[in-house]
C-alpha cells in the first residue's frame, strides 16, 4: 500500500531540478476529471466515474507548478508562500488553463518588434514538455511551419504573455515528446487556424495514444535505448541495422550497465520519496490556494459553457 501511495503522489512538477522526474511513476492512464480519492478508495474496487469530482490531491497534475522543488537545500516555507501569492495574483490577470504534454496550445505574446498594429505575436503548437516550479514554470510548444520545425519555450507567469488558449486538451502517454524532432513532421504540425475545442462538462481528459513511427537514423538522441522503458509513444522500424548495434544494445542492457540501471529505477522507492513533496505538505498547499483556483475555474467554465461543442470522432 505504501508503494501505491508514494507512486500516486508523484506529480510532474516535482524533481525538475534533480535530473528528470521519474517516468514510470505516473502509472498508466489517468482520468483526471473523475479521479477517485486515494484516501477513500481501496485498490481492488473499480474507480467510479459517475460524477465530475476532482479531489484536491489531483491538483498536483492540473497545477503542478504550485508544488515547490523537492530539493531540501532550497526549501523555505516563507519564500514558497510568497511565490504562490504572486502566482495567484498573476492568475487573476490572465487565464492559465489546465493543459498537459500532448495538448495543442495557442500563446499570444506582446512583442514590440511585431509588425501587427497591436504589437502581438501568436504561436500555435503542441506542448512537448513542461516543467519548472513556482514562477519559473515553463512549457515548450512545437510546430512545423513551412517545413521548418520550430519550438518555443514560454514562461507561464511572464507578464508579457497576453493569452494562453488550449485548442485541444489532451494528454500523451509519455511525459515529454522530444522524439517528435526525429519523427515525420505531420505528427508535430498544428494548423494556425485551429479552432479551440471545449470539452463537455465532466468529460475525462482524452489520452492521445498515437504511436509515432520514427525517422530512420541519424537521430538527436539514442531513441533505441529508451524505447519501452522511458517512452511508449514511438516505434522504430530497424532497431539493429548492423551487427554492431545489436552487440552495443545487449552490452547496454547487460547487468549493472546503464540500460539495466534505467530499468531498475521504477523499483527505486527512495528516489520517488526524494522527488515527492509529502502528502501533508501538499494538502496544506492546496488548502492555501485551492479556493482561489476553484473560483477562477468556475468562472472559466461559465465562459466555456457558452462556446462548447462536441468534438468529432474523426482525428485531424
Amino acid at each position: 500500500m505504501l508503494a501505491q501511495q508514494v507512486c500516486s503522489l508523484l506529480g510532474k512538477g516535482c524533481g525538475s531540478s534533480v535530473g528528470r522526474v521519474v517516468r514510470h511513476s505516473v502509472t498508466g492512464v489517468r482520468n483526471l476529471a473523475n479521479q477517485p480519492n486515494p484516501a477513500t478508495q481501496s485498490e481492488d474496487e473499480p474507480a467510479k466515474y459517475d460524477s465530475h469530482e476532482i479531489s484536491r490531491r489531483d491538483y498536483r497534475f492540473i497545477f503542478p507548478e504550485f508544488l515547490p522543488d523537492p530539493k531540501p537545500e532550497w526549501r523555505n516555507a516563507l519564500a514558497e508562500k510568497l511565490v504562490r501569492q504572486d502566482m495567484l495574483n498573476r492568475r487573476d490577470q490572465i487565464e492559465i488553463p489546465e493543459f498537459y504534454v500532448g495538448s495543442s496550445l495557442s500563446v499570444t505574446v506582446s512583442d514590440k518588434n511585431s509588425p501587427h498594429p497591436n504589437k502581438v505575436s501568436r504561436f500555435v503548437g503542441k506542448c512537448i514538455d513542461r516543467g519548472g516550479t513556482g514562477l519559473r514554470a515553463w512549457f515548450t510548444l512545437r510546430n512545423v511551419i513551412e517545413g521548418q520545425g520550430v519550438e518555443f519555450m514560454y514562461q507561464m507567469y511572464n507578464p508579457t504573455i497576453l493569452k494562453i488558449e488550449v485548442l485541444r486538451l489532451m494528454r500523451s502517454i509519455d511525459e515529454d515528446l522530444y522524439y517528435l524532432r526525429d519523427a515525420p513532421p505531420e505528427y508535430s504540425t498544428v494548423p494556425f487556424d485551429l479552432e479551440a475545442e471545449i470539452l463537455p462538462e465532466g468529460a475525462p481528459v482524452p489520452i492521445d495514444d498515437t504511436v509515432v513511427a520514427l525517422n530512420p537514423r541519424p537521430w538527436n538522441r539514442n531513441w533505441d535505448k529508451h524505447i519501452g522503458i522511458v517512452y511508449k509513444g514511438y516505434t522504430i522500424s530497424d532497431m539493429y541495422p548492423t551487427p554492431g548495434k545489436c552487440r552495443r544494445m545487449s552490452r547496454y542492457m547487460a547487468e549493472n550497465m546503464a540500460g539495466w540501471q534505467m530499468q531498475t529505477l521504477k523499483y527505486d522507492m527512495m528516489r520517488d520519496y526524494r522527488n515527492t513533496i509529502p502528502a501533508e505538505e501538499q494538502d496544506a498547499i492546496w488548502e492555501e490556494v485551492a479556493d482561489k483556483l476553484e473560483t477562477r475555474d468556475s468562472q472559466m467554465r461559465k465562459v466555456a459553457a457558452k462556446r462548447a461543442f462536441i468534438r468529432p470522432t474523426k482525428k485531424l
Partner: protein
Amino acid sequence: GPLKEEFAPWTRGKWEPGSRRPGVLAVKIGVQPLWLKNGKQILCTLLHVQDNHVVKFQTRDKFDRGYVAEKGNMPIYTGVGNRKAANLTGFVTVGAISTDPQKYTKDYCGLFSQCGLAPKRHLARFPVTDNGVIQPGTPISAALFRPGQYVDVYGRTQERGFQGGMKRWGFAGMPATHGTTKSHRRIGHIGSGCDKSRVWPGQKMPGWVGGMYKWMKGLRILRINYAENVLYVSGHAVMGKTGDILQVCDTKLHAKRFENCHKEGLTDGPKYFPTAFPEQLEELPEEEYCDKVHDFKSKSISHV
C-alpha cells in the same frame, strides 16, 4: 515626575547626504524571478529580516585606545591618527533572531538584558554618523530600506573545498589533445630561475576556496514586503546557501548613494531615517515595488 534622563528616548536624526546608519541582519530564503515593465526578466534573492533589534551603541573613543586601534590592526574607519571618515561617531550593534537564554552564558545574555532583549543568535556592527544613531532596544524591520535603493550585502560564501587553479584563480589550463602530457588542469609555470631563483610569496596555487566573508556591493532593492519583512534584492548570486545570515546596509559606492541617484529619484534620501519606528510601521502598505518592476496585480505588459 519627569522621566529620568537615562530613560528618556534618544533623539532621532534627520537624513542628509553623507549620513550612515545601521543596516540589518537578514536570512537568505530563496531566489525568484521578477519582471520589469519593459518585459525583461530579472532574478532576485529574497532576504528575510528576522527579529532584528538594536543591541548597543558604542562611541568611537572606545576603539581608539583598544587593540583594534593598534598600528597594523586599524580598520580604515576608526583609530587614533586615522581620521578618514571623521563624521562617524560610533558603532551600532544589531542583533537578529532571539533564542533561549539557557543556551548562552550569563555574560552573553547580559549584553542584551541591559536593553531588555532576549539573547540573539547573530550580531553585526555598523559604523554610524551622529544622526544615524538608534536607541538600543528599538526593533528594526525591512522598512528601514526604500524600494529602488542600492545596498551592500556582506556574508560568508559557500564552501567549495580544496580546488585547483582553474576554479580558484580562473587559470586557462592546457589543451585536451595535441600531445599535452598529463597537464590538462595543472597550474603550469610558477616562476623563472633568473631573478629570485625561488617561488615568490603569493604565487597563485591550488587551495581552499569559499567560506570567506565577502562584500557584494551595489545590489538594488526591487521590492519590499513590509508585512513579512522580506527584501527582494537584484541578483541571484548573493553569497551563501538558503538559511544563511547576511548583513545588508546602505551602499558605500559613490555613484549609487542616495544623493547621487538622480535618475532613480532617490536624492531626497531614505523614507524612514534612521529606521521606521513602531508607530510609523502602521501606515505602511503590505508591499511596495521599485518603479521599474512589474506588479503581478497589474495588467499584462503591452507594447502598444
